[in-house]
């Protein structure tokens, strides 16, 4: 009896409150902005790694010079949980003052918890590249630390074994497929190392090969948000994805191979000739260097699939530091962001952590031939195609791409669903 009373009381309270309040906190200005704040807390998933030690040191030194007496605390969070933790912090409006973000959807979805940085970072604009990935509706929410992009890496040793010229990688899709079958015949290696367990494979595929499929006009429109899903070239991306699977170009078991980091092991161990990789953090030149000699790692531009396409390096701001809206002293926190992206700090970061830094003035001549091939492409590079899509569309695209590989959906159906999801978000 009593339990029933309690239950109905809870029910009644629930119903009475239904629809009021909000799941995420609504924005209200955080007061006390001028109250002397002695400590800034930075959240990231990098500072705990030994490779980032010198970077953190340089940042702290640079900031201490300008603001003696303010301590900076770096809190390294596990990346798997990072955005969940950040979401919880944002809801309670108690959390870090400065935080690391991935560019694109991750930061745009959370822009309402962040402080626009435009007035604070004006001086860094021309020195750093990759701002677009941290911009939403014309406002900048973070300053880029690294650039993230999708160069196509190839294994020169396998090319040599197959009698191909490693200095002259294929330029068109037909040449690419021919080179692949030569490699397969001579070495048994697959053409493309593909990991699509998390649904990331399609993102890399779309961005890595997109500039060889869409015309420059279409590419620009796509990035600007005018995405024409009915265009035959957009459809071609997904056709090619399905074809590559059907024709056995991909490494085996793509849907159960994790992009991070199983698929890069497939490439490193010579079981696949190409991989659409990354430029920073993992899955890149430095990462592969553990098993492949640096001079055997080639970088090629996207093979041309449709006439009129001009291949370019797809890249965006990779990770960048943003300031929380609830921080007590926005100017101070923004100043810390400037220290986090100072030339000195970024030099240290790119050297030890293995990243293409956002600062294009850094000397990379000692980083090896792959980096030497990537950096000149940054000038002509364009934002990656998948970064322009919302996380919801990307999530759906991941699942649809798995269905395309397994044959449980058709290209037409997939493109139609993606178009609907893209319009809705």
């Amino acid at each position, binding site marked *: 009896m009593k339990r029933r009373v309690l239950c109905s*009381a*809870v029910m009644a*309270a*629930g119903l009475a*409150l*239904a*629809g*009021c*309040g*909000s*799941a*995420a906190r*609504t924005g209200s200005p955080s007061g006390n902005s001028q109250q002397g704040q002695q400590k800034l807390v930075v959240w990231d998933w990098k500072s705990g790694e030994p490779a980032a030690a010198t970077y953190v040191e340089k940042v702290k030194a640079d900031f201490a010079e300008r603001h003696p007496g303010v301590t900076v605390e770096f809190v390294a969070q596990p990346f*798997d*949980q990072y*955005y*969940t933790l950040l*979401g919880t912090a944002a*809801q309670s409006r108690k959390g870090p003052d400065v935080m690391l973000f991935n560019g694109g959807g991750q930061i745009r*979805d*959370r822009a*309402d918890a962040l402080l626009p940085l435009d007035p604070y970072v004006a001086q860094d604009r021309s020195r750093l590249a990759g701002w677009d990935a941290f911009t939403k509706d014309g406002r900048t929410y973070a300053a880029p630390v690294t650039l993230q992009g999708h160069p196509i890496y190839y294994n020169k040793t396998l090319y040599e074994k197959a009698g191909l010229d490693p200095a002259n990688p294929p330029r068109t899709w037909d040449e690419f497929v021919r080179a692949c079958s030569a490699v397969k015949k001579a070495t048994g290696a697959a053409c493309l190392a593909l990991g699509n*367990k*998390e*649904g990331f494979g399609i993102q890399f595929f779309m961005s890595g090969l997109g500039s060889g499929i869409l015309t420059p006009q279409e590419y620009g429109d796509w990035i600007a948000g005018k995405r024409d899903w009915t265009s035959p070239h957009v459809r071609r991306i997904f056709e090619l994805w399905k074809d590559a699977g059907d024709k056995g170009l991909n490494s*085996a*078991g*793509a*849907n*159960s*191979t994790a992009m991070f980091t*199983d698929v890069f092991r497939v490439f490193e161990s010579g079981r696949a000739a190409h991989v659409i990789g990354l430029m920073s953090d993992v899955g890149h030149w430095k990462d592969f260097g553990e098993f492949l000699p640096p001079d055997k790692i080639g970088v090629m531009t996207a093979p041309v699939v449709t006439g009129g396409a001009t291949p370019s390096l797809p890249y965006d701001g990779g990770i960048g530091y943003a300031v929380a809206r609830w921080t007590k002293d926005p100017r101070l926190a923004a100043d810390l962001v400037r220290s986090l992206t100072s030339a000195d700090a970024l030099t240290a970061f790119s050297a030890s952590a293995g990243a293409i830094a956002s600062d294009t003035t850094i000397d990379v001549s000692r980083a090896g031939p792959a980096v030497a091939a990537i950096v000149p492409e940054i000038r002509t590079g364009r934002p990656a195609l998948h970064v322009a899509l919302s*996380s*919801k569309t990307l*999530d759906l695209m*991941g*699942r649809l791409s*798995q*269905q395309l590989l*397994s044959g*449980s959906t058709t290209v037409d159906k997939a493109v139609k669903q993606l178009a609907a999801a893209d319009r809705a978000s």
Partner: protein
Amino acid sequence: MRGTSPSVRPAGPGRAGGTTTRREGRPGAARTGAGRTSRGARAERLAPYVLVAPAVLILVTLRLWPLVLGVNYSFTGDGASNGTPVGLSNYLELAGDPLFRTSLRNVGLLVLLLPVAVAIPGLLATFIYLRVPGHRVYRAVYFFPAVLSPVIVGAIVTLMLGFDGPLNAALGMIGVGPVDWLGDPGTAMFTVVGVHVWATFGMALVVFLAGFSTLDASLLDAARVDGASLRQVVRHVIVPGLTRTIQFVFVTTMIGMLTSMFGLLFVMTNGGPEGSTYLPEYYIWHQQGQLNRPALASAASTVLFVVMLVVGLAQITLLRRTGRLD
């Protein structure tokens, strides 16, 4: 919290009032030294409330209040319409989301697989109880996976079941084509459930063994003397003797399956391939943590809560009914 504490407190004075009236009706004796007795009596009357208060407060503030908040949030919007009431639209979105429907279907699948998950430890415990050769070793071996965390189990098994992993290599040697254990939407869910059962049946096995220790050995001896076969012994002696234990294992296995598969899913499949291994808890985590949709996640949590409530109540009714039969 503010809303709930008044509802608890008025009950005290109300009750106390009631008792005092009754006392007053009693003849003289109680009246002598009235002041002291009534103070002592009041303390005695209040004592139970004071004593249960911590438990009630913890339940109310840490369980019920968040539950009410969650239900409440599920009627508000996300993103731009954050904080505005949107009525049932989150629930309609859930109903229209194939991914959420898959996750509920998978819950149904888990319920269907429950008898298998109970039968395996039951059968193995029977063998151990009947002292098959090497039963001591088996007892330790069966329990061993139960001490591993799901993340470790998931990581190891993922390596083993990789498309180019050792299991497929072994299958290849005996001429069976490779199976994409975790990459084929038709097999992935069964693979994950299988691993979950393997990793957790040790606990149920121990419960079964404890149940066996209460079994009357003379019944078994009698059955043997009468020439019962193994199957007849299991069917007519062991199963009836273990009804309570079997019920208990059913309930705990059910709870384990519905609430602690997240770790395995997270490590082994990420909900894939093609979203085929989604469970409500993974869906909730995904919407809240990855897609930044706390209100939609609240709605999904509420649905999961209702499902668990229904399943739990159904089990309790079932247990009561069978309990009465004993």
